[in-house]
Each structure stands twice: as structure tokens, then as C-alpha cells.
């Protein structure tokens, strides 16, 4: 540890000289704004060429420290990992998804595929065959080695501790503080308990930590632009960003953090009169590494996802019919091709999230009060429509020769289940989109009502071999124009209230220039016993980019649909404001009796509250140091330490804020473990503040004492709550002293008064 101090002093002396020569000629910007106080933090001239490093990497010392942290972390993450042989918490989802990969059946989920594919990889390594379905059995069967699965994902959690150490070292914290940061990560009960199950959080946290580590390494190399080490850290950053955003979309917040850092760096370069060619090189190196590479990784994950999942499965309906038809075993892949009069059709709106044209024996509560027409996203008999000729054009659908439906034909659509006709009228406006006309199911096929007539307008034929003016299954996109009013049948994924069963509104859009996807339709399923079925897979084509974009839109839609249901009285959700204060920890299983193996998602209260304090303190420190500077009070800091304070603090505090604040804007349900990425930053910031205050206020001995006291206190608190982290089987009454806040439900729920 003494070597640390020496290095710091040596480095300081070196830079001190350089600094003073800089100070003699104030920068151009300072000269210009006479009334403007210098920026709170010195804008550092890039060209000094002298790397500033308080603490240098020492292979034997730091290697040993990281090894030690890894081993301790491994113990906390793996100790009694197989205790509960039941499917625990969200394992039910992720084990199931992993099974889909093994079975290669297509499914839909709100998260990008990488982390789930990693779990599937663990399944493959363990030799599982995908027959275990957590939906039916809650206990892991003998042939399923859940211990291996949990250990595999725990590896990511174990990696967090050495990464924290390395990151802090790169951020020029002294080894005492780096060690402390590693310990904080190990000793947080929430990070620990979430690392012990088959969940997505571990890979996500690991890659977030890796991004922070590599961007801090990159920052240290900023005076050696384009050196191999510079490139190494830059590329590593790009790769980590790609991986973290392929695990969960929360990863985009990490991308935002790196993006803001990069913008600041580029602006500084620009302000320091870097030549244009250098600017271009800097810019393009970052564009390739931090935009192109992550995007490529993100898309590659989806490509792999599509390649592996090539069989029809539960997620089919979220994708367009052309995609579905190409999945093995899909009902859509073998259908009659050319649509004939009398065919039974399922029509899908091309608008993402709309669904299939649907009707049912319920009426609109207002307007004409005729039968509802909606868009519904699931296969159902009520999606079947018979395509008929207009009244007056006599046609026998069973005996007359087959007649294809052509572009420009005027047709009628009959709802098969209720035998009523697709109808629209000028007299009533649609229930929600009041600028449009209402669409209803009304009347019988024999009634003479021109409001039932619709004109086919073919928009696009995707199959090159098919006739362009005929209606075909899946490959033809077309519009339906209401003959009497000239409006277009549209579905723009607007959710109806409960009277419409939260299905989507269907309207007749009066917008004459309607070119949007909302009025585009395709035939998804086609039944006609008189027409031979053909293999659709050779006729449809999809492009990867289209599928990729579509799947991402659908993910966003399902994500937004995860809104809190007030009626459900869920004890698990917690509002974002409560997280830093650890107000509502969460029971990870419903049954809380003696004998059950109970896990409780609670953080280490000491660390959570202290790290929150550090996060609140940092902006105040900035203001305080700024005010001191304004008053011309000379800084008594070591040379460049001010720069260091900003460089490390902005990444850690900014990372915390960026991984936390956006949750206030999200409408979806939020859980306490959404705070874990932000917590990682907060824990490192806590170590950073300890380091900062230690350096500024305490002597060498006292610093050691402070670190030891903090470490010991955190360990004690960790152990105090450890029963709930490692699995507790006794009666909760014995743990009632662990209920520190009345809002916690360790011991008793708010159940009784």
C-alpha cells in the first residue's frame, strides 16, 4: 500500500510542472468570457502527452487481489446454490425459454435473445433435451441438473467482483478503495441472491460492469490516441455495449452513458483545435467501435435467434404471416394460394400490433349499437370471414367454376360464426377515433344493403411468380375501400376499453390519402376445399432486416403492455423512488411458512443507504467546489486531482443516474431488481467517495481504519441477512429482528393490522 502513495506523489510532481506552464497562458475560451467564471472542472488540454495515473497496475499485487475477490465472491454465490430444488422466482420463464431454443420452437418475449441463448447454451452443455417444462412441474426432475444451470449463470455474478476492483483501479482509486468496491459488490445481499438463480440479471450486470470497466480503461488512454491499448479498450467497450444491450433493453442506458462520455470527449477535442483530419479519425473510430459494432452484435444475436428457432411455436402470432409461413410445422405453410369467391379467410392488418379482423356477438355500447368489429391477435374461429360477390351477381359458391378475386372487384365479407356482414356507414363515427366512420357487423347476406360492399385495391404482390391482379394468400397486400362512403378499412392498434375486451379498434378511415400500414391487409389463413393447398414456403419471402425490425417493434409493444394492474394487488412491484432507500424488499416466493425454503430479495441495507447518500452527495460536492472556485479559494488538492474527481465521478454518478432516472418515465411495472445496475454504479461511487474523503481529510492510518471499519460493518450486515439470501427454512418469527423497517415483509406481511 505504501507504494501507492509514492506513485501518486511521483506522478503528481511530474504533472505539476506541466500544469503551471499551462496556467501562464489562459485558454482562448477563458479569455473570451471575461464575465464568465471558468468551467467547474478544468477543461484538460489533450496534447500534454503525459498520462495521469495515480495508481499503476501491478500484476502480482492486483492479480492476487482480484483472485481473492473472485474466490470470496464464488463462495457467496455458490454456497448452497442447489438448496431449493423447485423452480424459483423467474426461473420459470427463463428455463422455459431455454427449452424453446432446445426444441427450436418460435416464442415471443420482451427481452432481446442473448442472455436467454446463453442459458440455452448451459442447457446444451448440461445435456438437457428440452422436455422439462416449468409450467407443468414446479419441481426440477432428476434428469434436469438445475444446479449446473444455476452455477453457469452464477459465473457472471462471480465475475462482477474482480471487475469492480479493476474498474476502480482504472478510475485511479487507491487499492484500499478498489478492494472496498469489490467487497461491496460481494457483500450486497440483493446482488448475491439474484446471482443464485437462472435469471437474466447476471449476464446483464456482468456486461454492464464490463462496459464501465472498458470505458474507464479507454479514458486512461485518452492521451495515447490510436495506440494499441487505446484501440483495445475502445473495441472492448463496443463489444460490451453490444452484449449488454442484447441481454435486456436496459443495456441501452449503458450505451447512452458511453455516448454522453464520447460526445464530451469529442467536443473537448474540437475545442482544443484538433485538426480536421484528426477529428475525422477520432470520430470515425468511435462511430465504428461504439455504434457499428454494438449494432452488429445486437443484430447477430437476432440472426442466431431466427436461425435456431425455425419451428412453429407459441410466438408465431406476433410475427407477420410471411414469417409464420416459413416456420416448420406452421399451419400457414400449406394453404390454397389463389383466393376464390367462397373462400374462408383470416385477414391480418399489416399495422404492427393490430391483429386479425375479428367480430363477436357483442354490440357497441354507443353509436349504432350494432355488432362489434375488432382486431384480435390470436387464432380464433371468430376471425373467419367468407368472401362473397356483391348482391345481384348471382354465384353458386359450391358448384360454379372457381372465380378468383381480382383487383378492383367489389366484394362482401361475411362473418362466418354470426353470418353477419362487414358493414360501415356514414351515420356514426368510430368509438375512439372519432374522425373515422364506424365499422360493424350487420345484416344478412341476402339483404340488399350497399353499405356492405367493399372494393379490393391491391397494394403489393410479394411473390414474383403470381398473377399481379389476383388476391393471393399471404403474399398480396391490399386495401378494402368502402364503396358507399369511399373510406378505407383500418386498424391502427388502438385498444378498446373493457366493453371491447381490450381488443383493437377497427375503423373506416376517411383520410383520402391514406397510405399508412393501418389500412393494409393480407390474407393470413385461407380455407377452401375446392382449391388444392400448395407449399407456401417457396412462395413467400422475408428479409432478415424486416423480421428484425418487426420483432423489435413487437417487443416494445409487449413491454409497454406490461402496465401495472391495480386490481391485482401485487405485493411484488415497487415504485422507483423507493429503491435507493430499500423501502419495499420482495419475497421471492409466495409460500412463507416454516419449512419452506425462503429467499428474500433485500439489499444490504447499510450499503444501499450509504451508496444512496454518496449519490446525493456528489452533485452537492460539485456545487461546493464550484462555489469555492468562484470565490477564488485556492484548491489545496494534489495537482490534477480535481480532474480526477471529475473524470471518475462523472462516469460513476452519471452511470447511476442514467440507469436509475429513466425508470421514473416508464409506464410499465417496475421491480426492485431493476435498480441493480444502478446499484453497481452507486456501490463504486461509494468506494470512490470513501477514497476521496480519506485522501482529503484523513491521515494514512485513519484511512486504513475507515476502510476496515466499513468492510467489517458491511460484512456483519451481510451475514445478518444471509439466511434470507442463502435460503431459510425455519420459522419467520425467529427472524423478526431483521425487520428494520415497517414496510418490509420479512416477518409479517401488512396482512394484519
Amino acid at each position, binding site marked *: 500500500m505504501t507504494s501507492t502513495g509514492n506513485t501518486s506523489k511521483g506522478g503528481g510532481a511530474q504533472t505539476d510542472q506541466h500544469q503551471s506552464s499551462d496556467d501562464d497562458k489562459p485558454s482562448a475560451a477563458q479569455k473570451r468570457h471575461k464575465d464568465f467564471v471558468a468551467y467547474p472542472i478544468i477543461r484538460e488540454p489533450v496534447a500534454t502527452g503525459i498520462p495521469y495515473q495515480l495508481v499503476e497496475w501491478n500484476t502480482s499485487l492486483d492479480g492476487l487481489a482480484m483472485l481473492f475477490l473472485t474466490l470470496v465472491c464464488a463462495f457467496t454465490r455458490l454456497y448452497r446454490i442447489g438448496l431449493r430444488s423447485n423452480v424459483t422466482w423467474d426461473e420459470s420463464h427463463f428455463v422455459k425459454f431455454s427449452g424453446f431454443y432446445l426444441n427450436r420452437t418460435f416464442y415471443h418475449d420482451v427481452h432481446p435473445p442473448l442472455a436467454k441463448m446463453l442459458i440455452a447454451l448451459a442447457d446444451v452443455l448440461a445435456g438437457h433435451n428440452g422436455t422439462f417444462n416449468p409450467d407443468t412441474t414446479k419441481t426440477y426432475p432428476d434428469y434436469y441438473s438445475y444446479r449446473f444451470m444455476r452455477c453457469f449463470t452464477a459465473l457472471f455474478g462471480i465475475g462482477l467482483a474482480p471487475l469492480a476492483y479493476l474498474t476502480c483501479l482504472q478510475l485511479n482509486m487507491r487499492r484500499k478503495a478498489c478492494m472496498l468496491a469489490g467487497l461491496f459488490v460481494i457483500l450486497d445481499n440483493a446482488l448475491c441472491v439474484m446471482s443464485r438463480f437462472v435469471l437474466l440479471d447476471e449476464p446483464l450486470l456482468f456486461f454492464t460492469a464490463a462496459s464501465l470497466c472498458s470505458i474507464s480503461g479507454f479514458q486512461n488512454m485518452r492521451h495515447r490516441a490510436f495506440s494499441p491499448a487505446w484501440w483495445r479498450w475502445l473495441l472492448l467497450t463496443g463489444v460490451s455495449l453490444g452484449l449488454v444491450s442484447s441481454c435486456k433493453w436496459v443495456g441501452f442506458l449503458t450505451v447512452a452513458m458511453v455516448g454522453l462520455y464520447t460526445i464530451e470527449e469529442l467536443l473537448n477535442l474540437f475545442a482544443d483545435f484538433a485538426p480536421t483530419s484528426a477529428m475525422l479519425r477520432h470520430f470515425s473510430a468511435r462511430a465504428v467501435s461504439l455504434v457499428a459494432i454494438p449494432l452488429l452484435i445486437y443484430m447477430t444475436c437476432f440472426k442466431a435467434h431466427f436461425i435456431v428457432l425455425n419451428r412453429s411455436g407459441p410466438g408465431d402470432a406476433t410475427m407477420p404471416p410471411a414469417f409464420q409461413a416459413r416456420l416448420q410445422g406452421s399451419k400457414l405453410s400449406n394453404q390454397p394460394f389463389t383466393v376464390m369467391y367462397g373462400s374462408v379467410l383470416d385477414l391480418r392488418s399489416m399495422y404492427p400490433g393490430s391483429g386479425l379482423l375479428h367480430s363477436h356477438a357483442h354490440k357497441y355500447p354507443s353509436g349504432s349499437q350494432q355488432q362489434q368489429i375488432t382486431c384480435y391477435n390470436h387464432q380464433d374461429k371468430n376471425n373467419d370471414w367468407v368472401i362473397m360477390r356483391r348482391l345481384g351477381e348471382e354465384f353458386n359458391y359450391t358448384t360454379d367454376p372457381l372465380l378468383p378475386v381480382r383487383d378492383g372487384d367489389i366484394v362482401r365479407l361475411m362473418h362466418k360464426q354470426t353470418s353477419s356482414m362487414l358493414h360501415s356507414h356514414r351515420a356514426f363515427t368510430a368509438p375512439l377515433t372519432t374522425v373515422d366512420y364506424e365499422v360493424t357487423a350487420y345484416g344478412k347476406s341476402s339483404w340488399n344493403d350497399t353499405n356492405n360492399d367493399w372494393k379490393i385495391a391491391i397494394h403489393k404482390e410479394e411473390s414474383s411468380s403470381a398473377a399481379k391482379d389476383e388476391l393471393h394468400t399471404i403474399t398480396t397486400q391490399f386495401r378494402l375501400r368502402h364503396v358507399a362512403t369511399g373510406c378505407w378499412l383500418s386498424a391502427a392498434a388502438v385498444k378498446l376499453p373493457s366493453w371491447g375486451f381490450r381488443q383493437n379498434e377497427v375503423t373506416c378511415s376517411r383520410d383520402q390519402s391514406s397510405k399508412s400500414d393501418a389500412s393494409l391487409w393480407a390474407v393470413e389463413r385461407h380455407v377452401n376445399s375446392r382449391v388444392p393447398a400448395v407449399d407456401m414456403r417457396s412462395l413467400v419471402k422475408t428479409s432478415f432486416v424486416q423480421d428484425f425490425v418487426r420483432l423489435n417493434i413487437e417487443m416494445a409493444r409487449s413491454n409497454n403492455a406490461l402496465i401495472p394492474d391495480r386490481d391485482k*394487488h401485487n405485493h411484488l412491484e415497487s415504485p422507483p423512488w423507493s429503491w435507493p432507500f430499500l423501502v419495499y424488499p420482495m419475497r421471492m416466493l409466495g409460500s412463507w411458512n416454516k419449512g419452506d425454503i425462503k429467499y428474500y430479495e433485500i439489499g444490504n441495507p447499510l450499503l444501499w443507504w450509504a451508496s444512496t447518500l454518496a449519490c446525493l452527495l456528489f452533485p452537492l460536492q460539485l456545487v461546493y467546489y464550484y462555489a469555492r472556485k*468562484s470565490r477564488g479559494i485556492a484548491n489545496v488538492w494534489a495537482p490534477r486531482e480535481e480532474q480526477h474527481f471529475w473524470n471518475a465521478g462523472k462516469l460513476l454518478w452519471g452511470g447511476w443516474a442514467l440507469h436509475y432516472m429513466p425508470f421514473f418515465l416508464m409506464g410499465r411495472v417496475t421491480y426492485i431488481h431493476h435498480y441493480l445496475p444502478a446499484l453497481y454504479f452507486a456501490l463504486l461511487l461509494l468506494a470512490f467517495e470513501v477514497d476521496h474523503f480519506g485522501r482529503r481529510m484523513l491521515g494514512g492510518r485513519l484511512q486504513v481504519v475507515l476502510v476496515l471499519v466499513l468492510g467489517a460493518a458491511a460484512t456483519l450486515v451481510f451475514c445478518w441477512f444471509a439466511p434470507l439470501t442463502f435460503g431459510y427454512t425455519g420459522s419467520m418469527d425467529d427472524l423478526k429482528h431483521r425487520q428494520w423497517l415497517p414496510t418490509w415483509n420479512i416477518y409479517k406481511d401488512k396482512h394484519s393490522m
Partner: protein
Amino acid sequence: MSVDEPQLKRRPGKDSAPDALPSAKQDTKPATVSATACALVRNSSGYAFMAVVALSFITRYWRIWDPAQVVFDEVHFGKFASFYLRREYYFDVHPPLAKMLIALGGWLVGYDGHFLFDKIGMDYLANAVPYMMLRGWVALFGFALPPLVYMIMAESGYSVIASLLAALLVTFDNALVTQGRLILLDNIMIFFMLASVYSYVKFYKQRYRPFGLQWWTWLLSTGTMLGCVVSCKLVGLFTIALVGAAVIFDLRRILDIRRGTTIAQFNQHFVARAFALIVVPVALYLSFFYIHFAVLTRTGTGDAYHTSQFQMQLIDNPMTKSSFNVHYGDQITLRHRDTGAFLDSNPARYPLRYEDQRVSSQGQQVTGVKTLGDNSYWMVKPTKDQEEFALFVARRQAGEDIPKEELSKWVVHHTDLVQLQHVTTNSNLRTHDVASPMTSTNMEITTLPLNDTANAADTVWKVDIEGAKANTTLLKTSSSFLRLVSHKHGVAMWTHAKKLPEWGHGHQEINGNKKPAEKSTLWLITEIRGRQASAEELEEMSKKQTSLSFLEKFVELQGLMIKHNNALTSVHPFQSTPLSWPLLTRGISFWTDAAQRKQIYLLGNPVGWWLANVALLFYAAGMVVLEICDLRNIDVVDGVVRRHVMRSGGFIAFAWLIHYFPFFLMGRSLFLHHYLPASIFAYMMVATCYQFICVHPYQLFALRSWSSRARALLPSYTAGLLFAAIVAVQVAVFAYFAPVSYGTRGLTPDEVNSRRWLSSYDMHFQK
């Protein structure tokens, strides 16, 4: 923010076109320029101001008596004014100042508040409402907006022509006019908002004469106006944030040691601002509520939102009027506080199997009904002293007059354990561990026959009176809210607005909530069968009127306002998203008259709003360019211009931002008129950009205040043409949309459709 000491320093090279500055040469060519023209130029600011006043008056007051019917939210705000005049308590999510001002107008003209503005389209003349005076009074505030805009711009160092531009754009904005001549809150709020901004600008201009009389005057005026704006609508908090940000900017400047301020001086500055801008507004806010409570002393429509203690301090409130102690053996009715449903039971049974295949107990249905019937009476029974109780009931049924002392033995207290016997079916209210029909997480509530003793523990309920601390607190009808918590299971009887399907006759579902402490588990005993107050009881009760301190009342009301504001989520057909506001994609239908095909449709001046968007984008782009140039030390604009456009422009841009962006974070239903405060700043931004582009040299044209003499008027003919073009288009578009803004003239379908510039403008009478 302003150019305080304009120096007539011309930029070299820019003076090569002297023809472009005709007025600038007035001093050197006295012979050719007539004296009248000189005077005109010198007094131009005054003439411009008067023109704005006149035009504003005409646009706001033109046929203000039309339509003589209730329009849109006059339903609310007219009604509230009536309540003030009747002194009846009401509840609303907005603070009281603006509504009290409306009422003040009514009071001044002698209106007694007899009309309740129940529905849009109700006739004022038939109901003898002095609506014209009310509207004219509120329109005073709307009328003041354009002159205030002119004053702000002029004080901020803009030229006559730029200030006039901003003021005229605001004068001829359809939305501000529509909103500005009806009995609505927004004008009053916007008036105080602009007055705050004006005061702050005046205050900031005194920064080199700190702690002088003027400095204090304008500082206190800023604080007063901020207090008023936040007392009109909570949106006023955005204005406070705007001034707060400007103050921080200013304090940062004062703190700089190069200014030569000592820490003591800085502290003085800080304390003075904290007092004027925090203490004064808070004190005003509280005092308006004080007046609010002082005026509204009688019971009214707002009672039901409040706790019983609050309600009982209102004159003539029904709670003290019919508040009796509940005794064992009484047959009571229980009403749910939030949904107003009565606890009811009928002989029908829960179906064995629900639609989702879950199984029920097939017990007798216990449901919530909206109208009181025979099935809604329940007898309260004690769980101990059964024999004595049976005797007591028998004596009462026999009509025996029981002495008071004995009666008092049978009163129901807080935390008593009771049973509730359904009177018509003679069975006890029961909950047990069976999932409720529609809310599977909650426990089913049913009844248990009297002879079933095995499960009797299910029928014991604990009476939990809200707010009661000691178990000596008595249960009273109409005044104490209570929870019924199952003694065995710990769940509280609860209901919600969900209707049971056909088997439940469409009644409300009632079940046991596992979170008994929730506010939604509160019930009220509304009636004891056969119990009526005797004359002496009535007299005694009227003496019992409680009193609450002002702060208690304030805290309770404030909490309710915030809660209900956030709960304003019900879907309104004309609500819109913040993103659509600046684009003006849709208006709001305020009022229609089908017979004469008239309508009032709230819509901004589309050209003006879109122009303002362009100006905002131009300013944002300009700032980015200036900042980037700054990084490289490139001078693109003159120092004074740069400073003005950055500070004054930045202030306006921030004002727009802070009055607009927070709406994106709000969960409540939002309307186009929420953008009106921001739209005024957007119009000011048009003038800022106009000034930046057209007015050179800057210093020659800058006004020092709205009443100061102008040294020059028109920078160039192109500038004049641009001004004329913008104003002409604004006026033309305003006039074109005037029929739907004023609602004074019916339109044919063709005329309506030609005004539908976007297909989403859903005006009425399109066919």
C-alpha cells in the same frame, strides 16, 4: 437579459448601406425629414403599445355576450363561482385564487349564485345570469395579455417592431382569444404568469442598484405574482421554476469573486431572494386557502371528498344532523365510501363453477347495490352476553322504552367484535378461504346460517373506526367511517366498481381484501332502521359542530387535490398528447348550436403556431452553431447581439420549455389548452428570431422600457415587409377561423370543411 447601456457603436463594414436605415439619420438630415415623422418615430413605442391595447380590447370583447349559453368548462368554473357566492363547500383540484376572482366579479355585480351551470348549452338569459359581466370581468385578464407581452419584450431590450410583432401575434391567436373571453381559469393564470415574468425582468434590470427601492419593489412584485400564479393552478410551479432558474443564474454571477462581492453581501442577496420568492408566495398561497375556507362555510357538494371531522365543521352538514350512536340490535345499512354501494345480500347462490373454471362455495351471494332495499339491512350482534342480548332485543321489539343507562351498555365501540345478521334471510355475514368470484386474490364473502356453529369463527368481525385511537370511541351513523375486519382471517370487507355477470344481477362484487389498511375498505353506516332524531336531539347535535384549525383543513385539502389531480385519468374524447400540441393537429369542441350551425372550437392560429415552431427550431439550431463556433473561438455575431440573444432568448426558450415539457411526465388526461402558457413564449421566440435576423445595428433600435422614446423604428424595408407579411397572414388566418373561435356565425358544410386544414380537425357540421 437586456441591453442596459446601449452604446451607439456601429460595427465597421455593416454601415455601408445607410439607405437601409432611414430613421437612423434623422439627426443629420433635419431639413428633409418632417417633424411629424420624427415625432412619430420617437413616440412609436407609445403608439405601438396603444395599438396593442386597442386591438386586444376589440378581439377579446367583440360580441362577448355571444353565445348566451354555457360553454365548455364554464360548467365547472361558473358553478364554482356560484358556490362561493352561496358559500357552499365544493371540491376541485385547482387552488382557489382564480375561481375566487371569478366569484369576486359576480359579487361585484350583485349575482347571488342561483345558477349552477349544469350542462354545456344551458341558456343564460332564461336563467337570468349576469354572464356578460362575468365574462367581461374574466376577459380583462385575457385582454391584458398582449400589452403585457409588449411590455416584457420592450423591457428586455427588443426594438419597437419586434415587441410589436410578439404582441400582435398574441393578439391574433385564436386559441388565446377563445380562451380569453369565456369564464375559464387559464387567462387569469396566464396573466399572473406574464406579470411574474415582467416583474422579474424589471427586477433584473435593477441589478446594478441592489437593495434600492425599485429593486425591492420589483422583487416583491415578482414574489407576489408567483404566489398568485401558483394559487390559480399548480402549473404555476413551472413559472416558479423559471424564475428560480433565472435567480440561480444571477446568484452564480454575484458569487464570482471578480465581481467584488463579499460573502456577507452574497448572503444578503440570497436571503432577500429567498424571502421574496419563497416565503412570500407560500404565504400568499396559504392566505388564499384561508379565504377559501373562510368563505365556504356551508355544507355542499365537496363534503363527500373529506374526512368526517372535516365535514362536521361545515354548517348544516348531514353528518352532525343525523349522527346517532349505534347499539347492538340495531338494523343498519352500510355504504361503501368510494363507490357508494350498499352492502346487500339475496337468497341467490354463487354459481358452482365460474367461467375460468374456478370453484365457489355456492354460498349465499353478498353483493353491492346502488339503491337501498329491504335486503340491505343488517342487525349488529355482540359476540358475548348472548342471552342478555336476546332478552334486550326481545324487549326492544316489544316496544319497551329502555332507559338511557341501560341502553348505553349496548353501544358499539371501536375494536368490538361483532356479527352482522342479514335481516331478510337470517344468516350471518361470513368470509372464508375461498377465492372471490372475480378477484381471485381476495376472499369470498357470503353468509352462514345461524345454526351452523362449526364455522361461526368465520362470522366474527372487528369494528375498526377510522382515526379512532381508544377503544372507547363510539360507532356513529353518518359520521364514523369504519372497516370490518374478519377476526379470524384478517381481511377487510371491500368492494370495487366491477360488476358481477348475469348470475350476480349486475351487482358489485364484495370480497375480503388482504390489505385491510387500504383507504378503499372504508364503509359508512348511513341509517338505523326506524331511528329518527327527536327535536331535542337535533338541537344538541347542532351544538356539536366541530372545528378544525386552518392548517389541518389546508393539509387535508392539499393532499386530496394532488391525489385527485393524478387520478384524472378518465378518457375524454378531446384529450390529446403533449407531442401534438405545437403541431396543432386537433382542437377541442367547446360548444355547438345545431339549429344555427354555430360552434366554438378551440384551435390556435395554425400559421402562428407553426411559425413559432420554426422560430424555436431556428433558435435551437442557432444556439448550437454559436456554441460550436465559440468552442473554436470564431466570432460570428457581435458581442452585444450575442449576449442578448443568448440571455434574453435563452430565458424565453427556457420559459417555453419549462411550461411545456413537464406535461410529458404527467399521467393525467391532458388537453390542448395546457399548451397556451407555452404558446405565448413560443410567440415571443418568433420576435427574438425576427430581431436577431432583421434588426441591425442592435443598439440603435433597442428599447429601454415600454414607455421610453424610440431612437429608430424600421431597420430596413425588407424587415418592414417581413413584419407586415407575418402580421397580415396572422390576422388573415385569425379572421378566417374567427367564426369557430367566437361562435358568432353559423357555417355551411363547405365552409367548415375548408377550415379543416388537417383531416384531424374534427369540427362539427361538416355535412
